[in-house]
């Protein structure tokens, strides 16, 4: 049994801490669930900063900005957009 599965069996939850929308879109997340016993996902402002800077949220930004959202409200709309 792989070490990741042993931890899971012993009651520790393993979460991936740099979730991106791409990971969900291309199905790569399934590998983390099936092979690495991942049961949760989390993110942080720094990861969002990079993802937004690389253009990953451009479509969502256009859509939400067109609704008049900016600043924190725009961020929370983006963060919930996948």
């Amino acid at each position: 049994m792989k070490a990741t599965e042993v931890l899971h069996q012993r009651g520790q939850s393993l979460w991936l801490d740099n979730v991106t929308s791409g990971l969900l879109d291309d199905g790569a997340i399934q590998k983390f669930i099936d092979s690495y016993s991942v049961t949760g996902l989390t993110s942080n402002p720094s990861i969002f900063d990079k993802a937004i800077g690389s253009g990953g949220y451009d479509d969502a930004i256009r859509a939400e900005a067109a609704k008049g959202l900016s600043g924190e409200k725009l961020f929370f709309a983006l963060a919930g957009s996948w």
Partner: protein
Amino acid sequence: MNSDRFQRLENQGARTQRLLWASTKTKDPEASDTLYVHGLAAPFTINTMPDDTLEAFYDHGEVGEPLPEDGGDVDARLARFTQAAVDLSALAARLQRDGASSFVNDWNDLLARIGTQASSLTGVPGA
């Protein structure tokens, strides 16, 4: 959590709040890439890590003894730092302050980034 009081709450559907070890990637390039995942193994906790750390632990990680519930030899270990003239309270306060300030900076950077990106996409300054 083993108390009668908590067991009664659990019967009512209460859920135990779990401790979360956040971002346990090894920071020191000289150290094992599974150092913290190995060392922080404990039931009823969460361990968050990036994909390379997860892959490293999957590939060659080893699960040892879980963290002792009573903290094990933690007091003796901390006493050795104190003997070596490390001011534990001051160090802990500084770590907490630095950590919080780093998150505040990241948050402000993120909001600035969103403003810049929105402006360049919509052509509206300060959008």
